[in-house]
């Protein structure tokens, strides 16, 4: 369940230009309001869910090594960090090099949903 919510947050930030702008302006504020909404069962999502403290922190700080280790889906992970960090903070090439350096020493986690 938790990995689903993690992927869902990455997805909803990256795929919606307004969400992306809100996240970039105030990551902690966006995640707090998103979690409030996500925890409330509403059609067509009847259960709702939450992030763990570690997941929340990794999202807010865009800690890609941590997100990778948690089994965030790599496609969603890459597009999330690219959308949030490029071009304001670095180039695609710089981000790619940084990601590869950060995750190379880590075990290859499963990302089965």
């Amino acid at each position: 369940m938790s990995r689903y919510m993690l992927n869902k947050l990455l997805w909803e930030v990256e795929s919606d230009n307004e969400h992306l702008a809100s996240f970039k302006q105030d990551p902690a504020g966006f995640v707090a309001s998103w979690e409030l909404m996500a925890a409330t069962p509403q059609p067509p999502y009847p259960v709702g869910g939450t992030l763990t403290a570690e997941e929340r922190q990794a999202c807010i700080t865009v800690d890609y090594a941590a997100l990778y280790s948690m089994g965030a889906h790599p496609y969603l992970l890459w597009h999330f960090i690219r959308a949030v960090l490029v071009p304001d903070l670095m180039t695609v090439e710089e981000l790619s090099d940084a990601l590869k350096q950060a995750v190379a020493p880590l075990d290859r986690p499963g990302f089965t949903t």
Partner: protein
Amino acid sequence: MAEIVLTLGVPHTPLLWGLTKPPIPDDLTGVVAEYARFRTMLTEARPDAIVLVAADHFRQLMTANMPAFLIGKAPQMRGTHPNEEREFGIPPANVSGDPELARLLLGHHELPTSFDFSFSDEPWLDHAFMVPLLYLTPDLDVPVVPVYTNCNAPPLPSASRFADLGGYLRTTINGSALDRRVAVVASGHLAYELGGPRQFLGESPDAVFDDLAVSWMASGNLDGAVAGCGFNRLNDAGNLTFQVLNFITALGAAGGRPATRATGVACRFGNEPFFAWEEGRE
């Protein structure tokens, strides 16, 4: 009588679209030339419709509801999502569907016994559909039946089901009284990684796998392809390599015969796949 007039397997690396405008970078000229060759093949085959087998990349489909195989039966579809326009520069577009052909594949009132397809009246085509269409039919003037396959969100259908899907497409289309010349186009990757330590290497993350995959298509080795595309082997080749499974569907749709053209074109993104099964040619 409906008939499959051409079967193709092509790449959809989204950054290709923005990069292959003049002046074309040296390493991408081979990809552009191959896509031009395939466009000519498709034009000469004069298809009335394209059955386009591709995987959504969490653009429309998320794991709240993730179908294994889904057929779009809408008369009109949107192409390209806003985040793909933003990140890849792929233009938004409208694409015509072919509901009659889609309903044939869905079995009309009752799904075929061999496949429990999902279906959609509102498919929204992502780059895996749009990149091949933009290269092959730049005017988007051939109606499309999108066949979504889950190659991205494990648990995935097994390789043998992708082969079965190809066989089903061939049997159903070629056995139909519908008046259609149909091109089957599969969209995918060879070895490919994103969001992991082997992304953007400037070459394939697993050239050994790529050579194998090309050889399966070139020799018409459907059994070998199925046996060689287990989950762990594909994941070892790169975390997005699962989209090679769509080429197994293409091979099945071509009746498991050797491709008339099969190549992996080397470029900065790895080896880009180009497979063709032309009818009436060995």
